């Protein structure tokens, strides 16, 4: 589904991504973790070209990500993304947030788009908020709307960029529940997150990144119980010790 081969990226002199190889199969759920500044956000933002990679190849669902803008928009329609800061459109209601993409990018009619949006808002368990504006919702609710908004595009892959790190602790669970739910429906998912409980439950494969490189790649069982790399061990020790 997603293939990255030899991807490199620089921010000026800073080498953010070093020789990244990553393969995600259809229906696979991948969790990427690592210390802040390790390049994990940049990595998943490269998958739908929010960041341009400088070297290497990225192929999503058979489409190569290159300078061709048709490829770019094709990939973006296949790939949904959930952001750390939600990025809901503040001037639109919850429902309008969800229908904008389907209507304008997919050309769906208004009533179809509404029906679709309501269906997905129900799936993230907030259909009753459909006519409110984002600012009137709690953080957890906003993030669930953001997930529904992405799902409205009927994506084949969902990317999550630290979806819970901007949330108050008591709201994290409601978002994770929705994500676990989604994992149960065979969605291909790539999540950058520090929620190790979530990772244990849903991940098929764990990646650990440090300093722009993928340091470790292992199934969760092995990853948590017997990490091969010293750096992974240190990192897990730091975030699991409490």
């Amino acid at each position, binding site marked *: 589904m997603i293939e990255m081969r030899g991807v490199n990226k620089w921010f000026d002199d800073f080498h953010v991504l070093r020789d990244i190889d990553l393969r995600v199969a259809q229906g696979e759920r991948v969790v990427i973790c690592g210390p802040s500044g390790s390049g994990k956000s940049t990595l998943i933002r490269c998958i739908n070209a*929010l960041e341009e990679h400088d070297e290497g190849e990225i192929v999503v669902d058979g489409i190569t990500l290159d300078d061709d803008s048709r490829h770019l928009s094709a990939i973006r329609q296949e790939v949904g993304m959930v952001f750390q*800061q939600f990025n809901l459109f503040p001037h639109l209601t919850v429902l309008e947030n969800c229908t904008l993409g389907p209507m304008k990018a997919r050309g769906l009619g208004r009533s179809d788009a509404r029906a679709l949006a309501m269906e997905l808002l129900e799936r993230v368990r907030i259909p009753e908020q459909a006519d409110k504006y984002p600012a009137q919702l709690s953080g957890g609710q906003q993030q669930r709307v953001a997930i529904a908004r992405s799902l409205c595009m009927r994506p084949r892959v969902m990317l999550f960029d630290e979806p819970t790190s901007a949330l108050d602790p008591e709201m994290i669970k409601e978002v994770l529940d929705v994500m676990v739910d989604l994992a149960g429906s065979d969605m291909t998912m790539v999540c950058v997150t520090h929620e190790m409980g979530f990772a244990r439950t849903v991940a098929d494969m764990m990646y650990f990144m440090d300093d722009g490189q993928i340091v470790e790649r292992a199934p969760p069982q092995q990853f948590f119980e017997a990490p091969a790399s010293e750096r992974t061990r240190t990192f897990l020790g730091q975030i699991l010790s409490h």
Partner: protein
Amino acid sequence: MAQFLVLMGGFVWLVWRGVAEMDYRWQWYRVPRFFYKEVDGELIAGPLVDGLWVTLEIAAWGLVFTLLIGLVVALLRLSDSIAGKALATVYLEVVRNTPLLVQVSIFYFVLQPLLGFNNPLWAGIVCLSVFEGAFASEVIRAGITSVARGQWEASASVGLTRLQAYRYVILPQAVPLMLPPMAGILINLIKHSAILSFVAVFELTTEARNLVGDTFMSFEVWFVVGPMYLVLTITLSGVVAWLERRVHRGRSA
């Protein structure tokens, strides 16, 4: 408040005294004729009404062109076209670093004959728009860039094109932010239109200058024309403040 009224009163008295000492003969009774004349029972607009109308005309057309120029320049600056950015930068620097009076002169005395164009009013309107366009482009650009980067990313992630993102996501958020400074630009258009009196555009200030020349009633004329501008600009500010409140009310409802 009482102190303030006393001060204002004192100020008016001082002016009055000063004028009286000049042996100035007030002729307020002639002022109504500057506004209208009655010929054969029909009302005919006087010079000040004509001038006011031209000023409004300049402001209205000027606003249209200012917005157009401002939008194009702002988009050029935000584009990734090298020539576009260069052109926008040259335009902004030239407009910002030369006086409006010199720009008016160049439009009137240089560009008009060069481009084979002979219409002071339109040369004036275009010149003012080119001048205010620089400020408008700044306002538009600031409005657009103040919309968080995440909004662009979210638009891209739900499959919108760049144009669609502008149309449905960025501009609806940016325009309310631009409204108050744009009102300032409209008011500046009215204020700066007075400079066109320099090149024989018959707007309010020109008419006033001609009246002063004809009647030597400088004080009456300027004391009337000043407040006319004041009423115009203050009314506009009020309208915009009201508009802004309505926009905000719509949002938070």
